[in-house]
Each structure stands twice: as C-alpha cells, then as structure tokens.
C-alpha cells in the first residue's frame, strides 16, 4: 500500500499513462519521413519518451523499496471551492454580466478559507466589484458584458 501512495510512483504512473496516450493518439496523424516530417512525428516521439520516463520513475520506487515518501494530503475544501468559483465565473459572465457575476464569485470563493465572516465577504464584494468596474471598464475600456443579457 505504501508504494501506491509514494509520490514518485503516482507521478510516474501518471506520466506513463499520459505519454502512452499521446503516443497512441498521434498514430492517427501522418508520421512523414525524416526528410518531410509529418504532424505525428513529434508528439509520437515525445509521448514515447514521457511514457518511458514515467515507467522508470514508478519502477524505481517498486524496485528500490526505499523509505516511504507519500504524496502530500489534498486540501479538498479550497481545491473544490476555488475551481468551482472559476467555473461559476465562466458560467455566469456572459449571461448575468460582470456586476452580478463578481459578487457571486467572491461570495463563493470566500468559502475556500477555513473561516467565513459575512461582513468581510460583503466588504470584499462591494469594494472589488466597484474596483473592477473602475479599473477594467472605465480605465482599460475592456468590452465586458455588464448587465444580464435578456
């Protein structure tokens, strides 16, 4: 079990799978000859190298039986919340406009911290939304949707 949690084993296995995947997928593209290299040559070579390297990395862990060096624990809460907040921004922006999206994103991302105080969230939401409007819309004149599109 300790081997499966070893950080080098996880990394090696991951690199091996991704490399093999790229190499396999690149067989769909023309390989070409070395005088006329095709689009498939470079990704095939690189994918193969990555797969071999991953195998060496993972194999080294299995063979050496060195001291366990497990992957660091994942902080699930910020991991999920931050990714969710970015996706929320993408989902809302073109529908609800910047001025509604930002407070929603700020409120969401605040939950990534271990402690949430509504007063602080409200301050962030107001200050940042106003600041972004001033900076990006008034200052840099970016063309972003401001209000909900009906």
């Amino acid at each position, binding site marked *: 079990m300790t081997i499966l949690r070893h950080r080098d084993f996880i990394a090696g296995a991951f690199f091996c799978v991704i490399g093999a995947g790229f190499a396999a997928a690149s067989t769909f593209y023309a390989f070409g000859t070395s005088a006329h290299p*095709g689009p498939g040559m470079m990704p095939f070579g690189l994918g193969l190298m990555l797969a071999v390297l991953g195998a060496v990395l993972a194999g080294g862990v299995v063979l050496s039986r060195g001291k366990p060096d497990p992957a660091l624990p994942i902080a699930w809460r910020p991991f999920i919340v931050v990714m969710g907040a970015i996706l929320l921004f993408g989902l809302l922006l073109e529908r609800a406009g910047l001025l509604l999206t930002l407070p929603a994103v700020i409120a969401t991302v605040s939950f990534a911290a271990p402690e949430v105080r509504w007063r602080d969230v409200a301050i962030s939401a107001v200050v940042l939304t106003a600041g972004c409007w001033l900076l990006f819309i008034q200052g840099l004149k970016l063309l972003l949707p401001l209000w909900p599109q009906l």
Partner: protein
Amino acid sequence: MDLYNNLLLGFQVALTLTNLSYALAGALLGTLIGVLPGLGPVATIAMLLPSVFALEATPALIMLAGIYYGAQYGGSTTAILINVPGEASSVVTAIDGYQMARQGRAGPALAIAGLGSFFAGCVGTAIIAAFAVPLAEMALRFGAAEYFSLMVLGLIGAVVLASGSLLKAVAMILLGLLLGQINTDAISGVGRFTFDVPELADGIGFTVIAMGFFGFGEIIANLGRPQEKREVFTTNVTGLMPTREDLKLAIPAVLRGTALGSVLGILPGGGALLASFASYTLEKRLARDPSRFGKGAIEGVAGPESANNAGAQTSFIPMLTLGIPSTAVMALMVGAMTLKGIQPGPQVMTSNPELFWGLIASMWVGNLMLILLNLPLIGIWIRLLKVPYKFLFPAITVFSCIGVYSLNNNVFDVVMTAAFAGAGYLFSRIGCEGAPLLLGFILGPMMEENLRRALLLGRGDWFVLVERPISAGLLAASALLIVVMLLPALRGKREEAFQED
C-alpha cells in the same frame, strides 16, 4: 559610439513623462506584489496582459519589466522583516536577513539589500546594452538547426535549475512540450489532439496555464496550509545606515554576487533563483568565519540580493536578442509584444529601436526609482503586510478571472483555467513543479517548427544538427550539462543547495 547613440535614444524614450510614469507604476506594483506573499510576478503580469490592449507597446513593456524587477526588491523586504520570502529568489535572503532584523539591525539589512540590488541592476542593464547588439547580429545568422539546439540547451538548463527530482523535472518538460502539441500543425495544417473543439485549434493559451498553475494553484496551496503566525519587526526599523564594518564586509559580497548573477541570469530557466543560492554558498565558503552565517551575517544578505537582481536583469538578454523566452515572465513579455503586433527576435532592435533601447534605459531608471522610493516607503510596505489573506485571495481570483476571459473574450479559456488550477495543485502534492512544464509548453511549438525545418533543409539527415558548428557546440554544451548533473559529487551539492527551499 553606436552604443552611446543607442543609449541616448533609449533615454530620450524612457524619460518622457508617460514612460516615466509607467516605469514608476510598474516598479511600485512590482514591489507591492513582491511584498505580498502568495502573489508572484507571473500571475500579476498575466493578470495585467489585458491592459496591454489599452497601451502603446513601449509603455506597456516598460511597465511589465518594472513589475518584474520591482518584485525582486519587494521580495527581499518581507524576507528580512518577517522571514517570509515574497519571491522564490529571496529564500536565502531570509536566512541571514531575518536574523539581522531580530538583532535590531533590520535597517542596515534593508539598506544593503536595496543598495546591492541597485548596483547589480545597473551592471545588469549595462551588460544588456553592451551585449545586445553583437548577440543579435550573431542571432541573425542562426538557422533552424541553431535555434533548435539553443532551445534544447535552454530546456536542459531549466532542469538543472528545477529544485525537485531531476526525473520529474524532465517529465514535466516533456508534458509541457506535449501540451504545446495541441494545436493546428503549422506545416501541414492538420488539427492535432483538438477533438474538433474550435477553441483548441489555436492551442491552449499560455496565460491559461500560467494563471492556473501560478495564480490559482497558489491560492489553493496557501489556503490548504495551516495559518502561521507572523512576527513583524516594525518597531525596530530605525537607522538605515550600515556601519563602516558592515560596508567593508558587504561591498566585496555585492561585487561577487553581481558577477555571479549576471552570468547565471543569461542561462535559460530562471537564473535569478540559482544565482541567489550560488552566491550564498560562495559567500559562506569565502568567509573567514563561516559559523556567522545563519546568525545575521551581512554578506549573506548582500551577495544573494545582488545576485538575484543582476540575474533578473540579464535574463532579458535571450528574450530581447533571440526572441526566446527563458523564463515564464519573459514568455509573458513575448506574449505582450505579440499582442501589439511585434514579432520578437533579433530584428526588434532594428525595426523598433525606440522600444528596444527605451526598455533598456527604463530598466536603469526603474532601478533608480526603486532605491529612491523604497527606503523611505518601507513603513508603508510593512503596513501592507498586515492586509489579511482573506481579503487578498478573492481579489486575486476576480482579477485573474477577468484577465483570462478578456484576452480572447472566451469562456472556454476560463473553464480551462479551472482545470489547470486543479492540475497545478495536484502536481504540487506529488512534488512536481509547474515552471519546467510552462517552459516546455512555450518552447515546444518553436522547437518543433525549427526541427522540422532543419530536417527539411537537410533532406532528412539528422546529422544536420551536428554538422553546423554553432548548433553542434550548443548540443555539446547540453550534453555536458547532463553529464555534470549526473556526476554523484555535484548531484549531492545540488540537493544540498535546494534543501533550504
């Protein structure tokens, strides 16, 4: 004489009111983000790329450059005062700088760090000015084979500088190169790995990966860490002047650090970081009494600070003369140039001399501003340190989201950023670094194009890469680097150097 005329042109450009104010804005913003831990120059410049649309090319690049070297100054302030290196290259500064602060000598430590950085910045700028013309002339003779070999050297250099395991760094580079293969093939026009998603036809945006890994990935990592108590030595910052004894020890260290940093900075892959480590090791070895190190030795501040600033300046050389970005920050500068329709490379010097020399002159001006402003403003920076992270990360989140979206007005980019944010965090859990991946991603398409062109010209003969003398020399240097890296003696030393990380 030419150099004189060129620099004159540069200063004429840099000293206009507009450009002065953008240099100032960049330097201040850089110091600010350098002071704030958890926000680096890569994420900041990526966030600011949209602003490049609104600006002329020259002021935009002057500002972005200012952010980069300003961050080096700011990073050392926090390293000394609260033992939190704002930037990776200030990690070693924290060792002795913080000890000096605890002994009530924060003032001299900050002053030496600032003055050393200023001196190194001036030397670095002079080196860029002196070497830019001959290097660019040489670059104009480069063919596809030379470019390919140069990039190989660059990628291998990046492995040496990565702090974790060598194998994993190489794997991350390969993964970056592969991610760079997701695009429309430049020669045959075939879409590769795009799964018929139109947004992928132009490849994944560089900012998407940079922002995901370095902007959001860092937020997740910071929030996942238990909160630490910070001890700020605010009351102790009195009397900035170093004593005569301090100066006697610090001046040779500054000179050595500057020399070391200038050379290492040219190396691709982020020489500033290595330069600061190397300088610290060197000072410790040369010192008459090495046991003082770690207990507040002023050379331990003066050397590395000069080295990282010199390195930060000279790392502009490959980007400005060859168009090859050697670090993530330089890649963003290249991106900013491309946004303004300037093709980076040796021809920039002749096609846009006011941009080229203006940028170089502005670096000197910016360094001067930093030293004049920062020492008196230290009180303000210290107060900024007290801004709690709970107000910081929502701000970084919304700025980054807007930045990513507005580059292409594209929701798909935002979704991809979320994916890379998660990936970046997961990679950090298994000890894989983002920087080599990013470098591979940037250089990948350029490498492939040059390799294939070289093979076409060489009629399919791979020996074309070693038949041309410059190309062969670059490849030999890469091979030498690999051999040196694998030597057991040096391997141990390298691990030792990065242990303080």
